[in-house]
């Protein structure tokens, strides 16, 4: 209990006076405090009076204590704060803050266009959201009594994505701290001291050379206009803000889309986002407007006439698709789902395939393919990982395997960094490139072919040395003996030789795992390059079980909605909710729900479909994304339907092209890698005549006169999903219902039974559209980070 402005209030142990005040609705002006950052005490604006304490302590760095008597506002404090702010403003161009024509100016308003009316003196891009101005207005500053010093520093524009004008900087240090404390990058720092202090890099390097990831956290933290996003800085106040979920990777960051003139002009992270907590990455923060507003977006349906694709009306195109698709036998048609589709679209697409065309030939063009899903089902009972993002941050040890985390899922590094700050040991099993990364304590450079021997070596060391979670293993795991005996043949020395690493490194990894409590393993698409990806996943799960942390398996899926698309049953052998198509009971349930006869035999998988298309056994193909290996020959296809947001090589052979809405233009839901179902909300209308994918499917079904596709909104589709899919009951993480008993899988070296095919796709893509093609600055960053393509190995 303490007294603040005469009010008696309770407080949490460890809270600062500023936090107590804010919690009780008392405003204390401050410029350097920022959510998630440690107290810093740089701006000296939150000075307060505390009884029996000397001087004026800053509220942000003073811990609250019992019986404190605090005064947060009186004339003396106000004049002190005014003085401090005047000093700050004596080095910050302030005509817009103290101008006596300010009111008039805001009436005429700044305008980013070269319009004929008065636009005010706009030399700072942050004019309409300036925190400095807000504080100055609160304190009632009308003049600055000190002479003004302009620092005369050159504008820094040589780096991609954002501009820096340190003449506007007030040295609050938010950018430095957010980069270091939260992102764990430390790409900027205070340099020099006194009057010469400036935020900068070592030896004045460019941000690009200095290892900046361009996540934009500093830009969002800046209270002034010193840091500003180049693409959107002059747009002023947006017309509206929409909270949606980013569909560029599977982390599921909440973003706020800023719409102006009916276009999405900018996006910034939502501080309330459950997965990202106010963080984003270069793709979500800076790339969305350029991606969705490209000039050559598809605007109307196209149909092939006399060998050329020509514009058509929706009715014409849908009618043609309905007539043509209806002609083929069930085994002759196939569907490829993009892992970037919404749950609604994926659900309707598989329903369309199964109900209208009576085929199970539907698969997702994603890392999240049948072998991975089946292997995960063995581990967790469902086709999903067991871990959550929150769990990563609480882990005692973390292993990242088979992906370039900093490039593929940058926001997860925030949680990894959080765990590391609390003492977790973070290890990387991956490529040479990351060896020098500060993010990892131990780095093992091993090619994917070495994953199997390395992991079985680690497993053997753990089992033999003991020290693992015996209570958990004996109480909750079956088949420990089988695992133990299967490890007999493995020789650590040979393992070390094959992987080209030292035996002590294997021991070190094993010791970390058994001695650091609960852990998390993040595994990425590179495991597909191994001979037996399924075996790798069970090895990883074995390791987690031995450490007593079954809820630690996190798939770094490559598509934004890989998880959701699989949950929705866009798979050849599973109905929605991972119910096997050969299971008579569940089939009957769906037959009743959809009032249709459903196919009973599992369909063809992704590689089989591609093979069938090349050989001619598949006659009609329906593709909803551009994620098709370029090497696939589609010439023997009789009929090809494609959804797209941009023209793609697929269109050379497509017979009908439907323009799809981008994720910023549609409502719906997507499911992140931690099984979190989150809403998409349209920030703008679909471009031209384009439509959300689910609507396109409904339109074709309507033309085929099939019932069960009469939906007027995405939420109606979601309601049906909740009815038929036992996993999904609404937004939020769907419950895995982990079993009480787990099975340890014996280690068995298996050779790849089938021929496999390597193909490349862009590392950063959205429905097959290379992001770097649309966002030129991203190309510069990709080059610097030395990431070219993602290779996928698919069996055929």
């Amino acid at each position: 209990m303490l007294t603040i402005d005469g009010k008696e209030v309770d407080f949490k142990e460890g809270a600062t006076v500023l936090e107590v005040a804010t919690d009780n609705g008392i405003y204390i002006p401050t410029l350097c405090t920022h959510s998630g950052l440690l107290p810093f005490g740089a701006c000296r604006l939150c000075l307060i009076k505390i009884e029996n304490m000397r001087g004026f302590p800053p509220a942000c760095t003073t811990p609250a204590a019992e019986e404190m008597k605090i005064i947060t506002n009186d004339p003396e404090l106000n004049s002190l704060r005014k003085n401090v702010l005047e000093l700050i403003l004596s080095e910050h161009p302030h005509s817009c803050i103290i101008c006596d024509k300010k009111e008039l100016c805001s009436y005429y308003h700044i305008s980013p266009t070269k319009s004929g009316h008065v636009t005010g003196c706009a030399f700072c891009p942050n004019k309409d959201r300036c925190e400095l101005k807000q504080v100055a207005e609160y304190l009632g500053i009308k003049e600055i009594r000190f002479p003004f010093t302009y620092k005369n520093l050159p504008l820094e524009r040589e780096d991609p994505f954002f501009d820096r004008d340190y003449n506007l900087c007030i040295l609050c240090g938010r950018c430095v701290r957010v980069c270091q404390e939260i992102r764990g990058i430390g790409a900027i720092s205070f340099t020099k001291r006194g009057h010469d202090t400036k935020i900068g890099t070592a030896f004045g390097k460019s941000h690009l050379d200095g290892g900046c990831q361009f996540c934009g956290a500093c830009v969002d933290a800046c209270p002034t206009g010193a840091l500003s996003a180049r693409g959107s800085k002059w747009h002023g106040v947006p017309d509206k803000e929409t909270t949606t979920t980013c569909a560029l990777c599977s982390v599921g960051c909440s973003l706020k889309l800023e719409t102006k003139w009916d276009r999405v002009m900018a996006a910034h992270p939502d501080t309330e986002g459950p997965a990202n907590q106010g963080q984003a990455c270069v793709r979500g923060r800076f790339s969305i407007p350029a991606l969705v507003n490209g000039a050559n977006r598809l605007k109307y349906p196209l149909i092939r006439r006399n060998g050329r694709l020509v514009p058509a009306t929706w009715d014409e195109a849908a009618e043609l698709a309905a007539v043509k698709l209806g002609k083929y036998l069930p085994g002759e048609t196939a569907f490829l789902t993009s892992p970037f589709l919404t749950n609604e679209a994926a659900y309707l697409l598989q329903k369309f395939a199964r109900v209208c065309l009576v085929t199970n030939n539907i698969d997702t063009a994603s890392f999240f393919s049948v072998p991975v899903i089946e292997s995960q089902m063995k581990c967790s009972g469902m086709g999903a990982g067991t871990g959550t993002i929150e769990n990563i941050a609480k882990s005692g040890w973390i292993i990242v395997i088979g992906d370039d985390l900093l490039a593929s899922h940058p926001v997860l590094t925030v949680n990894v960094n959080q765990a590391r700050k609390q003492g977790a040991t973070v290890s990387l099993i991956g490529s040479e490139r990351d060896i020098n990364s500060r993010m990892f304590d131990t780095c093992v450079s091993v090619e994917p072919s070495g994953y199997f021997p390395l992991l079985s070596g680690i497993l053997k060391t753990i089992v033999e040395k003991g020290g693992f979670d015996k209570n958990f293993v004996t109480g909750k795991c079956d088949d420990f003996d089988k695992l133990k005996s299967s490890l007999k043949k493995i020789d650590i020395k040979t393992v070390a030789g094959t992987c080209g690493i030292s035996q002590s490194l294997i021991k070190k990894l094993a010791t970390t795992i058994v001695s650091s409590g609960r852990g998390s393993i993040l595994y990425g698409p590179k495991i597909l390059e191994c001979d037996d990806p399924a075996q790798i996943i069970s090895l990883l799960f074995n390791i987690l079980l031995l450490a007593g942390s079954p809820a630690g398996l996190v798939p770094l899926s490559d598509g934004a909605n890989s998880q959701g698309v699989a949950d929705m049953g866009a798979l050849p052998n599973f109905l929605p909710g991972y119910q096997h198509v050969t299971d008579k009971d569940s089939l009957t349930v769906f037959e009743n729900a959809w009032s249709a006869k459903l196919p009973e035999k599992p369909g063809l998988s992704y590689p089989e479909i591609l093979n069938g298309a090349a050989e001619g056994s598949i006659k009609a193909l329906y593709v909803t994304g551009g994620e098709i290996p370029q090497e696939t020959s589609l010439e023997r296809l009789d009929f090809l339907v494609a959804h797209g947001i941009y023209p793609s090589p697929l269109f050379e052979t497509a017979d009908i092209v439907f323009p799809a809405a981008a994720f910023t233009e549609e409502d719906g839901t997507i499911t992140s890698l931690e099984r979190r179902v989150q809403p998409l909300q349209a920030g703008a209308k679909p471009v031209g005549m384009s439509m959300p994918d689910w609507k396109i499917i409904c339109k074709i079904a309507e033309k085929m006169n099939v019932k069960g596709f009469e939906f007027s909104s995405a939420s109606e589709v979601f309601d049906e999903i909740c009815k038929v899919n036992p996993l999904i009951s609404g937004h939020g993480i769907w419950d895995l219902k982990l079993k009480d008993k787990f099975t340890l899988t014996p280690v068995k070296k298996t050779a790849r039974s089938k021929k496999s095919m390597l193909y490349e796709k862009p590392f950063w893509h959205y429905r097959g559209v290379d992001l770097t093609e649309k966002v030129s600055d991203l190309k510069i960053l990709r080059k610097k980070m030395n990431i070219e393509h993602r290779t996928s190995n698919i069996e055929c």
Partner: protein
Amino acid sequence: MKNTIKNIIKPYQDEKGSLIPILQAVQEKTGFISEDAVSAIALELKMSEHEIYGVATFYTQFRYTKPGDHMVKVCLGTACHVRGGEQLLDRTETILNIKPGQTTPDSAFSLERVACMGCCALAPVIVVDNKIYPNVTVPKVEKIISKKE
């Protein structure tokens, strides 16, 4: 450079807060803090190079360019300032054609301005390679420097 840094860091391994002694040791050994040295230290300590640079530039004791063969220090402490230190610095800058903190292109001289050498009775002073020249006048500057060339 990597090996030099490794050897320098060895005694400080696993010791928190040893960045400044490491930087001092590096400067002692190589004469200045180079870009390579900073990245090597960053790698060893798993710190960001920018953070290290930020710490180093806070202190005036570190330099970032290779020092010349001769170090010329011009004192601008109170006593020297009053007795014309500013003109001596001006003259030295003109002769060497560099600013304080810089090194001549032939790496013969480095110039620095210092705040007090503790011998105010001799003001104004110039210190070349730790030798103190007392009661310097503007014409004397050229002689002092040409002696070293």
